């Protein structure tokens, strides 16, 4: 079959690879009908996630049709149109039973890596390196879905492919940031990053009752998109001082909840970007936490900061003093998507959430390398490139 493969740093190609197979009795094979780029793929592409081999199939946010199931699959059958969570959960360990699916204890066949790196095993993820289980990604014609009864969700009639697609990752990740960040009615919420996840976090905050939501980015087209589709205020960080602007807009308090949706390759306009860039290149720090630092400084006393952006290792100049003395709550997680996907599909079916607008560019799988080039460099206003393997 055809698949989009990582070949090295900033190098992708479309290859013929062996078809996936049912390896466990609870697996299914899904024919991928749409699969989208995600900001976290850029960390793989840039070589920041080291456990990649030449030929690995990437992609983790997708929908498709079940074409084959293992003998122990009970909730799905061939023909089901499903959206699949990008994080793989077993559904029965303590973490999954408590809706902390990205902490699943049975879905990563390579548990030693994350166990040593982070002091605990985390869930397997599609197309996200051998440290996260060595599972193939979704930028392919077919994909194997382990524990499919727990990880695939039937798409309701009337919900379009492109709306359902973002219920795989961007929408539940954003929802989690707002919900676990503790957004309550009347809150002021700031979101760093107007990519797909940031916009979904902003929308989730409004749906959870936030009185004001302020999204921060530097790309005019993304800021305009957030203002138009999410209905939030925006700040262009290249034209103002973000913390001063947030203080001025919140009576000097700062936002009640700050959601960071940027991750380890954060940019800024100041000296910080140069400092973190040099330290990262010299391997003196692994991740650039520029937006996290700013969120901690901007947050109101006693407020909450949620880290949605992907980080892998160690950071420098982490403002622990501000965190402690301002009495902040800091949380983070890979998405617990299975907890939110049914609710999000309902919201989409009712018309309260329409994430399909994020799909700025739709193309064939053969155009995958071009799609990532556009996505990485924000060419032509690209927010998300969506690949249709069978188009």
């Amino acid at each position, binding site marked *: 079959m055809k*698949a989009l*493969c990582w070949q*090295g740093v900033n190098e992708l190609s479309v*290859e013929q*690879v*062996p078809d*996936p*197979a049912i*390896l*466990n*009795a*609870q697996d299914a094979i899904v024919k991928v009908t749409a699969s989208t780029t995600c900001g976290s793929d850029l960390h793989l592409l840039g070589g920041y996630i*080291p*456990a*990649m*081999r*030449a*030929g*690995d*199939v990437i992609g983790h946010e997708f929908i498709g049709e079940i074409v084959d199931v293992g003998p*122990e699959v009970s909730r799905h059958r061939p023909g089901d149109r499903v959206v699949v969570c990008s994080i793989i959960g*077993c*559904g*029965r*360990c*303590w973490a999954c*039973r408590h809706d902390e699916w990205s902490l699943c*204890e*049975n*879905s*990563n*066949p*390579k*548990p*030693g*890596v994350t*166990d*040593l790196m982070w*002091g*605990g*095993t985390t869930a*397997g993820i599609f197309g996200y390196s*051998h*440290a996260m*289980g*060595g*599972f*193939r990604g979704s930028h392919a014609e077919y994909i*194997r879905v*382990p*524990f499919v009864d727990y990880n695939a969700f039937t798409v309701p009639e009337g919900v379009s492919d492109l709306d359902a697609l973002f219920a795989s990752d961007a929408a539940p990740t954003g929802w989690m940031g707002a919900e676990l960040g503790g957004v309550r009615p009347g809150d002021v919420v700031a979101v760093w990053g107007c990519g797909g996840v940031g916009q979904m976090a902003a929308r989730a905050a409004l749906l959870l009752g936030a009185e004001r939501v302020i999204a921060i980015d530097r790309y005019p087209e993304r800021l305009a998109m957030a203002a138009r589709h999410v209905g939030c205020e925006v700040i262009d960080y290249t034209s103002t001082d973000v913390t001063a602007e947030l203080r001025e807009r919140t009576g000097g308090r700062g936002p009640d909840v700050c959601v960071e949706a940027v991750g380890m390759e954060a940019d800024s306009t100041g000296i910080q970007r140069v400092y973190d860039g040099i330290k990262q290149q010299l391997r003196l720090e692994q991740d650039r936490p520029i937006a996290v630092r700013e969120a901690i400084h901007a947050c109101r006393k006693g407020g909450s900061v949620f880290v949605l952006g992907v980080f892998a290792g160690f950071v420098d100049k982490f403002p622990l003093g501000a965190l402690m003395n301002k009495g902040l709550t800091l949380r983070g997680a890979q998405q617990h998507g299975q907890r939110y996907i049914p609710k999000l599909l309902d919201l989409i079916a009712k018309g309260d959430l329409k994430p399909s607008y994020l799909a700025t560019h739709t193309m064939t799988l053969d155009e995958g390398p071009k799609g990532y080039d556009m996505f990485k460099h924000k060419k032509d206003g690209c927010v998300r490139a969506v690949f249709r393997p069978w188009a």
Partner: protein
Amino acid sequence: MEGAKAMKRLVAGAAALAAAGLGVARWAASHRRVPSAAKDPLESSRWLGITINRPPDEVAPAGHLPEPLARVDAEVRMNRAPGDRGTEIYARPREHRAGADAVLARLRGEDPRTTVRTALRETKSLLETGDVLRSDEEIATTRPTLPGKVLDMALGRAAEGGRL
């Protein structure tokens, strides 16, 4: 005159050398007082523990150890986990290896603690899900490269390694 200058340079050089030596000696003395990284004195005999989200009577019905833990040459104990967390199982190999012997065994892939660790993880997965998940790596899409070989060496034991 030249002789006096040479003598001055010699004395100054000797003084600088002595000062540097004193500095190094002070650094070395203070360095000795810095505690070294803690080594676990019980590393080779410590219990390896895992918590299974099943009650004790399902983990070991009638006292029978679950597979594949039952096949491993290990001491095993278990108790109910606090709260609603199920059952804590602890195991450690009967054969203890320490020092260089343990390092060599690890390099050869014959570390008995690795065997116990893998058995604990598989036992947990079987009891909780009825299966042990396999990686897609079994049907490889990758091609051999030098960085890939380095990665293979690093990840070669990833399935059985870790903190557990």
